[in-house]
């Protein structure tokens, strides 16, 4: 369990500067500044509708902010360069978002093939990734419809990691899985992140999962960042009454913390 954050030596890999987003009359994000530290796992957490998924989709340019800028690797993300930026990010959605017409291997290799990778380079990379996410290679020729939810998520992660991106974005990647599969996958993901030393942004609504993965936890409410800090800081030095309410609502987490975790 990665409890101590590596001291960020390099500048943030991604910065949100004064970002706002509305859908009609609804404010999805109030003016927001947020840094994503390099080589750290940042977790976005909050109740449904707090803006955490909106924030993630802004980072990869799937939606455009009404105002403000997304800076990725020191440059502003624009419609012109967003495609280039996406090649250096990996993105995993809740149900894996695999393409049903392609088998696991073709899902993973789609972009590499478009970029003209050689078969040998592809094979080597796929083998490494399968080992990393602990996916039996026999499953690589299966279609998404022939795999379990956990297997699909592992393939989704391989696809996101194929080009060795600088930043990995995960939108509730484990939410749809049953508890045992989920615990397994949490362990494997955490191990993979530690091994790769990648910058990761992960969205979840589960504080225990946030504490398990996150060096930095960002708690959101109604489009505002309420508090940014470690799990322990959220519990012991809540910045607002809402933080305490949110922590209390996650009952099993209280028990963990009371037992001396974090």
């Amino acid at each position: 369990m990665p409890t101590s954050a590596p001291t960020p030596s390099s500048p943030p890999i991604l910065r949100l500067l004064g970002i706002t987003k509305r859908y009609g009359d609804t404010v999805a994000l109030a003016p927001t500044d947020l840094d994503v530290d390099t080589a750290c796992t940042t977790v976005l957490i909050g109740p449904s509708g707090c803006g955490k998924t909106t924030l993630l989709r802004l980072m990869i340019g799937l939606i455009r902010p009404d105002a403000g800028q997304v800076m990725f690797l020191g440059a502003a993300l624009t419609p012109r360069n967003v495609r280039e930026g996406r090649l250096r990010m990996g993105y995993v959605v809740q149900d894996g978002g695999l393409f049903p017409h392609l088998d696991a291997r073709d899902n993973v290799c789609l972009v590499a093939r478009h970029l003209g990778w050689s078969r040998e380079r592809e094979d080597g990379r796929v083998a490494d990734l399968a080992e990393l996410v602990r996916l039996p290679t026999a499953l690589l020729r299966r279609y998404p419809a022939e795999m379990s939810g956990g297997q699909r998520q592992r393939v989704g992660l391989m696809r996101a990691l194929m080009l060795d991106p600088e930043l990995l974005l995960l939108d509730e990647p484990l939410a749809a899985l049953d508890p045992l599969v989920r615990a397994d996958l949490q362990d494997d993901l955490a191990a993979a992140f530690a091994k790769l030393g990648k910058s990761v942004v992960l969205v979840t609504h589960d504080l225990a999962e946030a504490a398990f993965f996150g060096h930095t936890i960002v708690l959101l409410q109604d489009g505002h960042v309420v508090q940014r800090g470690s799990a322990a800081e959220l519990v012991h030095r809540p910045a607002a009454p809402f933080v305490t309410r949110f922590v209390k609502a996650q009952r099993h987490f209280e028990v963990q913390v009371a037992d001396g975790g974090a």
Partner: protein
Amino acid sequence: MTAAVATRLSALPFALALALAPLAGPVVAAPGEPRDVELRIGSKVFTESVILGEIAAGLARSTGQRVRVRQGLGGTRLLWDGLLAGEIDVYPEYTGTLAQEILPNAHPPGAGPGQTWLRAALAARGIGVMGPLGFNDTYALGVKHDLARRLGLKTISDLRGHPELRFGFSSEFVSRGDGWPLVRARYGLAPESVKGLDHDLAYRGMATGAIEVTDLYATDPEIQRNGLAALIDDLGVFPRYDAVLLYRMEAERAAPAAFVALRRLAGRVDEATMAAMNAQVRFDRRSERDVAAAFLQTTFGVAPAAEGGPPSMAGSILHNGSRHLLLVGLSLLAAIIVAVPIGVLAARRPRLGQVLLGVTGIIQTIPSLALLVFMIPLLGIGPSPAVAALFLYSLLPIVRNTHAGLRNIAPSVRESAAALGLPAGAILRRIELPLASPLILAGIKSAAVINVGTATLGALVGAGGFGEPIFTGIRLDAVGLIMQGAIPSSLLALAVQGLFELIERGVVPRGLRLR
């Protein structure tokens, strides 16, 4: 000509134009080169017109003229437009139709009932009139021969003295302004009993004696069959429907000898002769061409042109089938090339998409016959207008299904695809189109199956195909002939359905066929 057709086709994909060019029909010579001109003779989709067309063709052939007959074309408007557009050179028409349907506004006020004004109006359009041929296919009143003899009835006026006769007219004749109301008023008839009934029932009523006077068309074969006599319209109440041949004046300059022969036809076909020829086709099951040849032999001593006998049934099914396939295949291919991109565009731009779907939907609601007729001035007669119409009909199912197939892709898949960083074209090709392929293919399949059926109407614009035996069969009341077109075209539709199920296995990715 070939080039002109190709230019007119430029609205369609280029490949289509190329493929159609050889089909576009005979090469018409410019006025400067009168040799080797093919004279194209058309006729309408009913027996009398087809017989007249064959007679004209036989006469022209007797001068060594090369002739191409396009028989059984859809209707007055189609032939007239075809004549104006230079797609056909000659066809039989009726003066009443000319005056009332084709040039309803050309009759100068105060002009007499003669044909001078009509000839002038036609000449202004480059169209000439030959004839009258000798019969007036207008309404007539008929009584049984023996009754006519017994009562000495020769003219309609003679009926005035016999109010006791039972009158029975077709419903249309009873209600038309130029029908019974006019006859009754002008002749001062006051029969005790007048019934309105179905035309065919009227003949049956005449046979049983239930009615004794009825309306008929002057050359109706039923007249002879039922032993009826047509009473002379001595007051000239009915509009005249004199049969004539219309022709392009330009065609006469190109083939003067053939037109000398054609003019011999004037005044040589009277009502009785025409009715007898109609009866031979209708009741004796002889082909129009046979009947026409016999007429030419007896009237002009013209020997029938040596022709191979009628093609075998298998041969004609094969011939019609290959033409039918060509119509369906070309139109479908062009539709796929055009409709899939339109569907993609519609899915990308929702507002434009509504417009595009609306337009293709409206095209679909145009009755097929009307659409075919619209095509004649643009594309002439033959396979081109049929292919174009089928092409337009195929658009909707393919556009709609392409649009739906793309819109139906799950949001998480769509988002994952966008997040990959692939160019839009690659996303479309590698992800979106494969995912939409089952629906797109279903759209193409339904377009193909509908086309196989609709293509039968192509026969009405001279496109050939299985519609040819069907419409000839309907004209001749020959069920066997109808079946020769209907059965193979149904089988073809089934085969197309089966073919697409095979294609589906090849095209739709395996991952989408699981579950």
